[in-house]
């Protein structure tokens, strides 16, 4: 009772109850329960409402099996190093899945390379007023909603868009370049979508770095790249990991940008999930696919954190 009593003593009864129920409601009702329902649904058959709760409503691995092997009669087979294993293989869904993960990783890496110098500049130069205006300029475009921004990119990268107009008039190309089909628009849109979530954690981390540390390293003979490698990046690592985690998770789970900017031949894994829920009318299968994506992303992030020796607690800083 000591800990609980202390909690109420510190915060008072009213605030204590609010914190307890507010946080409890948020975690339990808004996060845990829906995900548990989704998990539960993913192990069920896609039954018409009349059969739900009946003798046929039993747990099954069918939805996960479908992700791996596809429909019955699927002619694709799993090849291992050119050797036909004879096991049916859901080539389309699995390749979209891996392409989504790899593309999200690539977008994350690209955002990191783009944002680190910016965040360093903003965090370390005492530019005062200009710096604040710069940060404001970064934030304001995000007042425009995601779908509008995606459509704006479509216009920017379209056949008769500004980019093609410029390229044509400067004589760099003689045919409009198809940025949509080449997925340039998609990656640009995804890269732009979550850039703030990369800049701010890194900026926050670097801002608290003592400028003397950089000067000390320089004074001891260090070239600029080693200063970053040995002093700035280790210090900013929690911010970098926090930014990368958010950008990766959100990019892998993005729907609007792939839907609007994706070329005709490119499919994002979230689009497949969306199809199962929406046009496919198979929520159970959609849930299974969503669960696969969630666990893959969480697993990958944990793996990378282990690889770069970052503890969970540091990210919250």
């Amino acid at each position, binding site marked *: 009772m000591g800990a609980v009593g202390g909690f109420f003593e510190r915060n008072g009864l009213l605030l204590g109850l609010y914190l307890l129920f507010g946080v409890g409601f948020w975690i339990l009702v808004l996060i845990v329960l829906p995900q548990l329902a989704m998990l539960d649904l993913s192990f069920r058959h896609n039954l018409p409402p009349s059969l739900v709760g009946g003798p046929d409503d039993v747990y099954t691995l069918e939805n996960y099996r479908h992700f791996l092997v596809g429909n019955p009669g699927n002619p694709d087979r799993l090849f291992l190093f050119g050797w036909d294993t004879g096991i049916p293989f859901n080539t389309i869904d699995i390749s979209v899945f891996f392409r989504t993960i790899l593309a999200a990783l690539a977008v994350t890496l690209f955002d990191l390379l783009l944002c680190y110098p910016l965040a360093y500049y903003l965090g370390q130069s005492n530019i005062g007023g200009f710096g604040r205006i710069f940060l404001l300029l970064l934030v304001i475009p995000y007042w425009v909603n995601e779908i509008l921004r995606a459509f704006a990119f479509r216009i920017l990268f379209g056949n008769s868009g500004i980019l093609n107009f410029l390229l044509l008039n400067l004589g760099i190309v003689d045919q409009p370049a198809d940025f949509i089909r080449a997925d340039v628009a998609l990656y640009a849109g995804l890269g732009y979508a979550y850039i703030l979530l990369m800049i701010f954690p890194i900026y926050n981390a670097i801002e608290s770095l003592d400028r*003397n540390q950089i*000067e*000390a390293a320089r*004074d001891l*003979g260090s*070239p600029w790249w080693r200063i970053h490698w*040995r002093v700035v990046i280790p210090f900013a690592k929690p911010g970098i990991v926090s930014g990368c985690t958010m950008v990766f998770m959100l990019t892998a789970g993005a729907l609007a940008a792939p839907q609007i900017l994706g070329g005709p031949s490119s499919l994002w894994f979230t689009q497949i999930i969306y199809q199962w829920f929406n046009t496919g009318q198979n929520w159970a299968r959609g849930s299974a696919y969503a669960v696969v994506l969630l666990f893959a992303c969480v697993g990958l992030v944990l793996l990378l954190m282990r690889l770069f020796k970052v503890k969970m607690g540091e990210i919250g800083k």
Partner: protein
Amino acid sequence: MSRNVGVELDALWVRFGDFVAVRDANATITGGEFFSFLGPSGCGKTTILRTVAGFQAPGGGQVRIGGRDMAGIGPNMRPTALIFQNLALFPLMKVWENIAFSLEVKGVGKTGRRKRAEELLELIALPGAGDKLVSELSGGQRQRVAIARALCAEPDVLLLDEPLSALDLKLRQRMRAELRAIQRRVGITFIYITHDQGEALTMSDKVAVMKAGVIEQIADGRTIYNNPATPFVASFVGENNVLRGKIRAVAEGFAQVETPDGLFRGRLRTDATLQPGGDAMLFIRPEAIALGGGAENRLTATVEAEAFEGQATHLQLRAAAGQAIKMSLVNRGAVRDAHSGSCHQLVFAAEQAVVLPAGELVSE
């Protein structure tokens, strides 16, 4: 690391926008010397240090190290190492990695770096601390690690920016002696920045006293204290009484100064240009004033306050015409010589009084 690499400041100017941080500074720092810049905060002493280190470009004039003009040479290419006021140790590196960072930059292998770090840990009396984190060390230990890190770079000139200011009094006094000992052992030039005159006087071979971007005097500590060049130096270094007046007569290195409290005689500097009738200031140290009679400079004053400090009693007096006088009486026993309200005759020798042309004093 080589001994006898000197530093010269030649007509050095540094400006920040309209603000002149350093105005026409000239100094010759001999190789192997412990040289201090002493001045109140904002006087430009740190700017001089940063200019020597290469973090600040001169707006005019030259910095020469070992006779070589340093213009266009970055901080990472200069034979200097700087110890920052807050030390700026790398918190995410172990102690030995901190110390050997300059070797890592030079591409020295891990065993070589570790070996050198251990040698330096031996020098700073912290053997076995190599694997600790900086945060596990005490203030004085961090101080020593910062010195070792700088020495590891084998600089010809070590620059120290008020490195003792964060330490408590006892530790500061111990580190003074330690710094001085390290300087004697390694034999390289130390340039030391401080606003603490005790530090400057006890450690330095030479002291440059600065005021508002200008070097007022460069001399050894004794000369600075006994023979100040300007009213600012006289009032900034140690306690001093100032008697303002006009020169009556000048003869054989001495001058008579007429003040509201009478006529006083004091020593002139050899470079003095004072003429009879000129505005002058006569400086006399509190410890150079005695109770009693005999000496040629005499005045009567009433004790306003006394403060007993053990080894001495500090008296605050007021002369007849309103002149405030501070004096210190060395404690020679239980007898109490003066107490509040009592009136006394004060005397001081002309040799111990310094007459300077009137000028700006340190602002309290």
